[in-house]
């Protein structure tokens, strides 16, 4: 809906001061679970380059020496921490490396809003924390808002500003401390849910074993900064 792919069922939606329109360069988008293995003879830099001008017809007219990349591509790769491996084939990269590459692709058009759908799905804990740190850093440095969807709040705990927890047809909005609590979630799920906190402040949602938690986390640059500090 934010991308302008679906119209709202009712009401009006305004994103960055105007109604959403397909193809806005102001919004960077990384969808969930993209299958990039298919692209074998395809490098990271090729993928990021598509974020820059993949929507234009024809091919990029080579105006500079062959090996040199457009500066926005280099900057986006740098910001996402993907420069080192960007000239390798996508098929040779790990899931975490691919995820950061997709982030670079979303950043290359210099967006003001970043939409990330399940950026931590299928990542191990190390890549999850690297990814969370990269997202937080990018949000501060480029002063952009990040809206992301995640099932697990923990990798994001310290960088997220606001959480919009969606479950059982209801929502709860607030800081993670306000929302991810036993009473709030029990109300949302309509059943007993407990939130356990471990020694390092990580929260675990238990109870209602057949249902899955699905917090929509929302972070804004200003508070991300506070959280990182």
């Amino acid at each position, binding site marked *: 809906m934010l991308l302008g792919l679906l119209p709202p069922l009712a009401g009006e939606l305004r994103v960055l001061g105007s109604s959403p329109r397909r193809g806005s360069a102001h919004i960077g988008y990384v969808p969930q679970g993209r299958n990039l293995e298919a692209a*074998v003879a395809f490098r990271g830099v090729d993928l990021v380059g*598509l974020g820059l001008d993949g929507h234009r*017809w024809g091919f990029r007219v080579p105006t500079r020496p062959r090996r040199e990349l457009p500066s926005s591509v280099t900057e986006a790769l740098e910001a996402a921490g993907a420069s080192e491996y960007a000239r390798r084939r*996508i098929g040779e990269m790990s899931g975490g490396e691919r995820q950061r590459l997709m982030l670079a692709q*979303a950043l290359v058009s210099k967006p003001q809003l970043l939409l990330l759908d399940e950026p931590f799905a299928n990542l191990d804990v190390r890549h999850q924390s690297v990814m969370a740190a990269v997202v937080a850093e990018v949000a501060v440095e480029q002063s952009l808002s990040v809206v992301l969807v995640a099932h697990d709040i923990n990798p994001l705990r310290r960088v997220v500003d606001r959480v919009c927890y969606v479950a059982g047809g209801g929502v709860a909005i607030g800081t993670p401390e306000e929302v991810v609590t036993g009473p709030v979630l029990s109300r949302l799920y309509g059943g007993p849910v407990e939130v356990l906190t471990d020694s390092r402040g990580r929260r675990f949602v238990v109870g209602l074993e057949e249902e899955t938690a699905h917090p929509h986390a929302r972070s804004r640059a200003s508070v991300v900064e506070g959280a990182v500090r």
Partner: protein
Amino acid sequence: MSVAARHLLASAGPVSNFSWNLLADLRQMLGYAFMRNAFEAGAMVAVVAGVVGYFVVLRRTAFAAHALSHIGFAGAAGAVAVGVIPLWGLLAFCLTSGAVIGGLGQRLRERDTVIGIVLAFALGLGALFISLYSGSSNEAISILFGEILGVSTGDLSLTLAIGLITLALVAALYRPLLFTSVDEDVAEARRVPVRMVSVVFMMTVALAVAISVQVVGVLLIFGLMVTPAAIAERVCRSPGQAMLVGVAVALGSTWLGLAISWYFAYPVSFFIISISFVVYVAVRVASWAKERAVRAMAVA
């Protein structure tokens, strides 16, 4: 010279004995108009197949390309039945079905089933058209297995024209085509007309298939459209490189196959397909050996 006569020429025992003076052989080979036409048409088809093949492999639409060629068979047989040159029938059937297959989109779950059903129907039509045509079965054989030695000067200019149109279409679509191939959701969000790109691309494949059928025939189209591109996918990093290598493999096997057929009276398409197949196996074996060596190093 009629097609049948040329066919006879190509299959009536060794056309020339092998000599060690390859240059003289080449000169003698190219002294014949039908050999020159074959080399030129083969070159155009190889370039087109190498370039289009990269996207066919990248988009995982090999089955659609395969289906297009078989649907083209019905078109070609129909054209023969009504007395038009087969290429027109190929073009008409391939372009129509290419537009439809492209319109089905990449994601549709039952897409391959739909293609398969249409493909079976088309082959049935082909069988009917062949029986309607009272002439010899030579025409059918040459559609199925290719008849590059039968390319007339008229066919050649048509092939060159269609080949250039195909390359121009790929050039015009290049970036959106790459974008939608690797990453359809993001491309859609960035306002790339995904459906339109898919339709135009399948029509481009249809054009490529139509001219490739002359060289290797309906049944062996994979050898030109998929094998060289699959080889390139394994050895290359970037799309540009992969297309160049794909073209090189397709061109090499076509020309070499033609040259070998000068000495041995077996079907040209057999030689072309065999060469690209051998290269593919060699590349697989080489990458397997390399992986093993790397693993051995890691263990040691």
